[in-house]
Every structure is written in C-alpha cells, then in structure tokens.
C-alpha cells in the first residue's frame, strides 16, 4: 500500500503571491498521481492528474504539478493565487493496475490553503 505525505497542514499566503503545496509518496513503482481540491462544505473535485508522459501537468485555473520520480514527489504550484483559491488540497496516489488494490486511492492528510487580501 502507498502512503502519501503532505508536508504542510496549513499554508497562508497573500493574494497574487506564488504558492507551492508539497506532496511525497512512498513507492517509486509505476503510479498515478492526483490533486483534488475541496471547497468549504463540498466534496472533492479533481484538480489535475499525472498518468504518464510529460512530467508537468496543468489545470485550467492556473495550477500545475510536476512529477519527480527520483524524489517521489508531486508538488502543486501556482505562480499567483487568488482569494478564490482558498480551499483544502489533497494529494492522492493510485497503485495502478495491480492486485488487490485495484482502483484504490491513497490520500494525504490535506493542506489548507488560505489566501489573504
């Protein structure tokens, strides 16, 4: 089974500042990686995913994440945040198509991003 570590439980930043939310996972074998976002009183929504190919993936709202296999990391970044980005962000890892964990996601504990005006 995978374990996922989100190194920061809370990240406060000012509007228009850059931000990085860190995520590390335990296994270096083939995995699928996801970032989900949760706005207050809502469920989780997919922000972006890495499956294969280019190690840099982007979302439609300006976030990007880079897969680093050697460091087993999938950090999320945005060059300039908005107040509307305030939410909790979860990193998740899938084992891929192996054995008894088919289709299972392993989540980090979440990072609360708070953007101040």
């Amino acid at each position, binding site marked *: 089974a995978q374990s996922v570590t989100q190194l920061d439980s809370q990240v406060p930043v000012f509007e228009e500042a850059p931000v990085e939310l860190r995520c590390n996972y335990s296994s270096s074998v083939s995995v699928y990686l996801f970032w989900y976002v949760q706005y207050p*009183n809502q*469920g989780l929504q997919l922000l972006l995913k890495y499956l294969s190919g280019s190690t840099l993936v982007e979302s439609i709202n300006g976030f990007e994440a880079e897969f680093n296999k050697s460091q087993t990391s999938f950090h999320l970044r945005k060059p300039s945040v908005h107040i509307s980005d305030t939410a909790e962000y979860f990193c998740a890892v899938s084992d891929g198509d192996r054995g008894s964990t088919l289709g299972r996601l392993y989540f980090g504990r*979440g990072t609360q991003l708070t953007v101040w005006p």
Partner: protein
Amino acid sequence: NAGVTQTPKFRVLKTGQSMTLLCAQDMNHEYMYWYRQDPGMGLRLIHYSVGEGTTAKGEVPDGYNVSRLKKQNFLLGLESAAPSQTSVYFCASGLGGGLSNQPQHFGDGTRLSIL
C-alpha cells in the same frame, strides 16, 4: 447530470442508534467507495465495492457495514453508533480496475454527529 448524490446531508444520532447512509451514482461506474474525513486525517477508506453484489474492507472498516445490491447504489450502515464515528462521510465512484488512471467522483458529503 447529478453525478454522485448522498443522503442525508446532515444527521445527529444518539449513541447506540443505527442508521444508513445512501449513495447513488448515475455514471454507470463499477467501483464505489465510502470514506470518512476527520480533521488532520485526510480521507480514510472505510469500505469499497468493485461491482454489484461485492464489497471489500478498506482501512477503517470496524463499526460499519455496506451493501451494493444495485450497481448505482452503495449503502453504508452504522449498526450501533459511537461518538468516535462523528465525522464527515464521503461517497465516491469511479471506473477503477484496469482504469485506475481515471479519477474518482465525489458526493458532497454527509455530516454525522453522534452524541
């Protein structure tokens, strides 16, 4: 397109009471999941199902039971509620299996308080 629908959205129970949370999805997904979310703990998998009529235990299955009698529905039961089960419960569905690269789709959650 409703996606994943959870009912109820809120519930308060007394210790020892029982209840069932309902999850319904309209995307024809094979896989369905129940998670609980607690502050600082992220999401932890309670039970999941890889198809109609099948269920499996996740990380924290104790005190819960599930059933998947119909492909579109996944029920989570608490037979004798305990204060430790106070949490926000999320249902999710997905293609799973050989398509583990596909994301899971989440409902809006059920906020459950056990007094």
